[in-house]
């Protein structure tokens, strides 16, 4: 080929006419600035302000710089440590209940029971109810005099076991965890079911050819292959529980005797419920907890998830 027009080798052309994957700054500004403005104004700025406030004592409009005093006080605040303990118990143990219930339910549906579609919808329903509704329902279920739990115990002649479920410091946290699992098991079920259905059928058929019974297939093939999903669900549930507030606040208010106090309820109490009128101290708690949650998420992701990403 001979070139018909002699032109210098490198003519730079402006980049605006072509390449649909690029665009001009004004266009990006139009698309992104509303979201960024909302993020900066209502998420980033408040978060930084909370961290900043944690070095002050704030009563009304008066802010007094106190350095690390809030954090020092926090270290020796017994209620805080009880709240931390409760929250950790909840965060580490409750997800196991949620996820395993969800997995079992998903396997039941996968096994091909009749009315699977109806059951899936029915089991998912509690996920949609607000914590306020769930809390009220379960306060009634746990009611000492006429709650269904005690009524059932009395009907089968175990009336002696009837308890004030939310009034007993030894039982209250467990009762709340059960309630929470009631709400969330359906969510875990649906996710597990989707994951099971996305497993490659060839692998399951290969397991059949390897003479795996249902139980062996479950233990050696299905559950190991679902590991990434299960770990992911565990982390999701863990994060959710580190933030738990509504259910506790409405059902027990953190009582009896701090038995169900969580970090979230404690922050709320110190900030808005007790008449201490200091927003600096609860800001310190929130800051510490923010760090703990972020660190926990990062660590869990690293430790659990990264080496378990299966290729299939």
């Amino acid at each position, binding site marked *: 080929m001979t070139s018909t027009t002699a032109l210098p080798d490198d003519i730079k052309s402006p980049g605006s006419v072509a390449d*649909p*994957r690029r*665009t001009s700054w004004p266009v*990006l500004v*139009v698309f*992104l600035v509303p*979201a*960024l403005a*909302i*993020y900066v104004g*209502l998420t*980033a*700025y408040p*978060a930084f302000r*909370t961290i900043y*406030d944690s070095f002050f004592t704030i009563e009304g409009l008066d802010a007094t710089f106190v350095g690390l005093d809030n954090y020092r006080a926090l270290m020796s605040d017994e209620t805080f440590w009880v709240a931390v303990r409760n929250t950790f118990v909840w965060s580490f143990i409750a997800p196991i209940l949620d996820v395993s219930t969800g997995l079992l*339910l998903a396997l039941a549906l996968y*096994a*091909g*029971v009749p009315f699977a579609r109806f*059951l899936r*919808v*029915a*089991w998912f*329903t*509690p996920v*949609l*109810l*607000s914590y*306020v*509704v769930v809390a*009220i*329902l379960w306060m*009634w279920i746990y009611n000492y005099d006429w709650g*269904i739990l005690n009524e059932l115990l009395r009907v089968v002649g175990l009336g002696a076991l009837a308890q004030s479920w939310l009034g007993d410091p030894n039982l209250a946290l467990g009762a709340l965890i059960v309630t929470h699992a*009631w709400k969330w098991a359906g*969510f875990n079920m649906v*996710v597990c079911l989707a*994951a*099971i*259905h996305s497993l490659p059928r060839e692998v399951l058929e290969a397991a*059949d050819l390897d003479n795996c*019974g*249902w139980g062996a297939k479950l233990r050696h093939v299905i559950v190991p292959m679902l590991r*990434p999903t299960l770990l*992911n*669900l565990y982390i*999701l549930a863990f994060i959710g529980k580190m933030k738990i507030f*509504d259910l506790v*606040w*409405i059902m027990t208010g953190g009582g009896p005797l701090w038995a169900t106090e969580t*970090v*979230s309820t404690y*922050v709320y109490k110190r*900030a808005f419920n007790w008449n201490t009128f200091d*927003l600096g101290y609860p*800001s310190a708690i*929130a800051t510490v907890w*923010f760090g703990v*949650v972020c660190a926990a998420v990062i660590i869990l992701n690293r430790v659990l998830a990264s080496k378990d990403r299966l290729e299939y």
Partner: protein
Amino acid sequence: MALFSMLGARDPGATPLPRLFARGGLALVIGAYTIYTLGPFLWLASMSVRTTGEISLDHYAWPSPFHWEQFRIAWVDSNFATYFWNSTLVVVGAVAVVTLVGAAAAHALARYRFKGNRLIYAVLFSSIIFPPQITLISLYQILVDYNLYNSLLGLTLVYISLQLPLTVYLLEGFFARIPQDLFDAAKMDGYGDIEIFRRIVLPIGMPAIATTLILNFIQLWNEFLFAVVLITDPDKRTLPIGIRAFMGDHFQDIGMIAAGVMISVVPVILAYIFFSEKLIRGMTAGAVK
């Protein structure tokens, strides 16, 4: 192998299961669990159409007669109408804004290459793990500063910020899967950037947008913590805090509480009945690895 039946033959994904297990224990467990999830809800529904007097005689009796006027009393005399409309106003407003703003950002992040794209995405998304307290206390102060405390507008703004990360996350994932060829074709047909968003992305992304709409709607309809902190005026309460306040004042009035709770649940159940598949998909998006 003879034990294997084809119980699930209708479902292409189903596999054989030992017959005995399927017939006996499994059915029992499944039945029990269904009662466990739906039972409390049906119990609540039954109490909502009975008077408190009837309920205290027997908490588990079938309603007779059905006292539908319970709902009228709750709606008119117990202020649930106010709470309902407040909730509607705040939630519909917040969902509309967050979907539009989130979709615009998601489109830009999914489609265009520019410096800082992934950084902006990570920043927006990471706030999904923030414990709410980290913003709660300051938001209270900020809204007080700007005279938005105790106002539905203030609560709406906060709700927009709460749902933004999830909205961007879900829509970005979907928009990124729209084939680039379509945008190239639109470009050759002379579409500008804004037009591409309005005329191509929004119509094609409708299924995903509908999913985020419903998801955001339900999550905000049920929101409690920020509402209880940012709203104190009884006339401005949303349903969750309204029910909670009503329960605090009328602890014994079980029938009326149940009616109020039913009023708050009905929109969610309706959304669920019409969009259950979309909703489940939205709630589980990203959880399957």
